[in-house]
């Protein structure tokens, strides 16, 4: 799908933890229907940035604007309602709920809100969408790791977000599972979802991203198409290595 207008503006965003500046004056935009990769070395501030957009952390300075709406000082639940959904770097499923209920959880209180039969039907569709049909009654503990990741993704999609934040969603998958995972995200891209993707898997970055932002020590060091940034000497030095 062709990209549209910018919908998310991040302006001069910074985050300090005590003396440590985890994110330092970072600005970028995300276009509608775009998959934007956010990459960088360990500890460079990727998760911190994602956490600020989703409201888990309060920015020290800067602004985050979604479709003209200022999210900077908003609480996580308000941001979720405005249309930002996320997954977590370490999978967080709701252990005491069934598979279906886990997905419903995403569709009741967020951006698009449904309840009753409607949300059940919708959640069941999403389960099928991510490849979990027929598992809706199961306790989540019975799911394999990749299925848990799928489930988390379905939960994030259930609110029909404007922007989806995926923080190392592919981490921990083995190569064949990785192929499945990449295909799943690719199909979301086909649907025209707007996604910010944090990954260390270069294959995924290459095949999925329209555009990449590279940060190091909290500051932007490169931006452009995956090919461009991944051949940038600065990025190679700080992030990829020569291996």
């Amino acid at each position, binding site marked *: 799908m062709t990209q549209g207008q910018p919908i998310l503006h991040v302006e001069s965003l910074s985050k300090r933890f005590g003396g440590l500046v985890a994110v330092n004056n970072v600005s970028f935009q995300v276009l509608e229907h775009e998959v934007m990769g956010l990459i960088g070395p360990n500890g460079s501030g990727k998760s911190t940035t994602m956490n600020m957009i*989703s409201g*888990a952390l309060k920015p020290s300075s800067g602004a985050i604007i979604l479709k003209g709406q200022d999210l900077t000082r908003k609480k*996580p639940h308000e941001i*979720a309602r405005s249309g930002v959904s996320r997954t977590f770097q370490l999978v967080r499923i709701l252990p005491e709920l069934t598979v279906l209920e886990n997905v419903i*959880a995403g569709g*009741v209180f*967020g951006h698009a809100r449904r309840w009753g039969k409607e949300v059940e039907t919708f959640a069941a569709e999403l389960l099928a969408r991510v490849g979990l049909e027929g598992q809706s009654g199961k306790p989540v503990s019975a799911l394999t790791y990749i299925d848990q990741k799928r489930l988390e993704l379905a939960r994030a999609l259930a609110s029909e977000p404007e922007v989806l934040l995926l923080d190392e969603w592919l981490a921990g998958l083995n190569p064949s599972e990785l192929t499945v995972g990449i295909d799943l995200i690719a199909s979301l891209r086909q649907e025209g979802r707007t996604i910010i993707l944090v990954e260390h898997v270069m294959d995924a970055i290459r095949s999925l991203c329209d555009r990449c932002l590279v940060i190091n020590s909290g500051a932007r060091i490169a931006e452009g198409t995956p090919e461009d940034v991944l051949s940038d000497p600065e990025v190679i030095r700080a992030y990829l290595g020569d291996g």
Partner: protein
Amino acid sequence: MNISALAMPGAAALLAAAACVPFVADGYWLSIAVTVLMYAALATSWSLFSGPTHYIALSTGAFFGIGGYLVGLGMSDYDQSFWAMAALAPVVATALAAVIGWATLRLSGVYFVIFTLGLAEMVRNLVSWVQNNFLGSRGLYVLTDLDETHIYWMLLAVLAAVFVFGWWLGRSRLGFALRILGNDEAVARHVGINTARTKVLMFMTTGFVAALVGAIVAPRYYYIEPNVVFSPELSFVVVIMALLGGTRKLYGPLLGVLPFTLLWEVISVSFPNATTLVLGLAFLLIVYFLPNGVTGLFGKLLAGRSS
């Protein structure tokens, strides 16, 4: 489907049967029944909040105390009727719960537990201080014409209301939000749940019920002493009964309260000189041999039969 179809008329029949207890029970059994209802209402409402959220609130004593104390104060010092005070007390407690809820929202886990534990102490002290310095009362007597039968019926009504509320909650968005919150608060926030409001709302509900129960049983005590109505032990007992019964099912706490009260009674009667000691031993045995509470045991028995 079958079970839920039976649930409504079943519950109604149970309620009707329970309402008749005062006609058949003598004083002793009635007073046990009153005790059971009191703890059942407290433990059930406690588990509406603490069950799904896993926040172990030890504030029952504080709100229960406010209920009893306000009734005593209003009737003794301001010539108010019992009914007026019994209506007012839960409102005050709910307001207080709202304030405390907001103030302690950032506390999680054990921090919340300890704060609520201290709450009864703090409220008792503040109340005593205010009374001492500004009201100067002469003993708070709650003299009404209500006897145990009336108290029993009122408590039964409260318990029934708590059950209806719990039943509704189980089907509502609020209840669902609460379950998500109890599983993972961060996830709850990020799927759009106003976790702060949800928690405070439920905390207020338990505060309301505890104060109402405190107000209703005040005539049973006749004389209200802060150090009796604001008892930390009550908070613990309620929690222990609820945990014993199991908090996953709405009827779980009731299944804890019943055997617990009876056990307590049996021990009091059989070991009049060492009641506390034997109770302690019984506690340990329960913890070791009933790790999942009475509902857990139930579940096991059912599973055992079906397999």
